[in-house]
């Protein structure tokens, strides 16, 4: 096989040959590009999400000045009001994280109905945001963890460092 490869390269100097899948990256950096893009999009998604949550909380404090005023007027300390708001937002975050993760899994499944995407991508649940990758590259694996974020789940075939 190597003979064939070197024969081709000698005969046509403007061609490169590869003899195994592992050498693919010699000629095609697209896979790594996709990984990088994927990471960038994830970071963006987290950033935008965080700003969204912050905005919601700030708005809710503004909208609730009356309520907060009433609580303060009947003797609640500022610390107690703050604690109430933090506990509320934590509860909200937990519920929202559950919904968001379920939605993310559903969306990454749904996206596979597009033939062009199905041939290229395979969902991996888990990823950069997890301390340990969960290794669900095998199609049909039953063991999976929730994705860290919706939109995080699609991963290019074979190019994953995980």
């Amino acid at each position: 096989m190597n003979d064939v490869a070197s024969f081709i390269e000698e005969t046509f100097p403007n061609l490169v040959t590869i003899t195994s899948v592992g050498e693919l990256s010699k000629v095609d950096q697209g896979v790594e590009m996709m990984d990088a893009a994927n990471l960038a999009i994830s970071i963006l998604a987290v950033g935008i999400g965080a700003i969204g949550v912050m905005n919601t909380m700030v708005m809710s404090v503004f909208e609730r000045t009356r309520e907060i005023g009433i609580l303060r007027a009947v003797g609640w300390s500022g610390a107690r009001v703050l604690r109430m708001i933090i506990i509320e937002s934590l509860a909200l975050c937990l519920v929202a994280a559950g919904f968001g993760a379920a939605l993310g899994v559903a969306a990454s499944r749904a996206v596979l109905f597009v033939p062009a995407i199905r041939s290229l991508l395979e969902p991996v649940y888990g990823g950069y945001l997890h301390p340990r990758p969960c290794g669900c590259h095998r199609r049909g694996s039953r063991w999976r963890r929730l994705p860290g974020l919706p939109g995080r789940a699609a991963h290019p075939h074979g190019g994953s460092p995980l």
Partner: protein
Amino acid sequence: MNSDAPVIAISGVVKTFENGRLRALDGVDLNVQKGEFVAIVGPSGCGKSTLLHLLAALDRPDEGTIVVAGHDLAAARRLNEYRARDVGMVFQLDNLLPTLTASENVQVPMFGQGHSGRERRRRADELLAMVGLAGRTRNRPPQLSGGERQRVAIARALANAPAILLADEPTGRLDSASGRRVLELLEQVRREQGITVILVTHDPAIAARADRVVQMLDGRIANGTGPA
């Protein structure tokens, strides 16, 4: 405490707004005895609500001293406990939390006062029964009439058995029948619990039922400072 010592002692109180351009209170002196029922009357804008807000420690005076039940309101740093325990305030609009039930609204001031949830509920039920709303404890304010909401607000003001009840036109938005009920309730509370009641009103008929009527005008008291 000496029984002659006033439970409320206000002297030389000035409160300005708009960077001092508006003198809402312009040197107020007033003493109130324990258990007294005082009505504050006067034209709109003369400073009645401002005075009540200072007594409820919702705001601080620019000058002068206010001592209520031993608390120096002009100087004290933390007034949360005072607001929760020593005074109860009833506003012209009920100022209930619309998403909570009547019972929960009455319980709000009891948080942080060392009661168990069960004690809180029991006390709220008692208070609501006292104001004649035993059957409505689970209703939310939008499901109650104006008079009923105002009675819930009175129950809330009494949640921690305060020594002083402040009411800012509590009957101002009520028809005469429910207004009379609210007033009778305040009189009953005062009779049974010896609470000092300070009531702001525009209604001469209500003012006539007080021990003493304090007439205000342009941020001052127009008719003397001591008990009658």
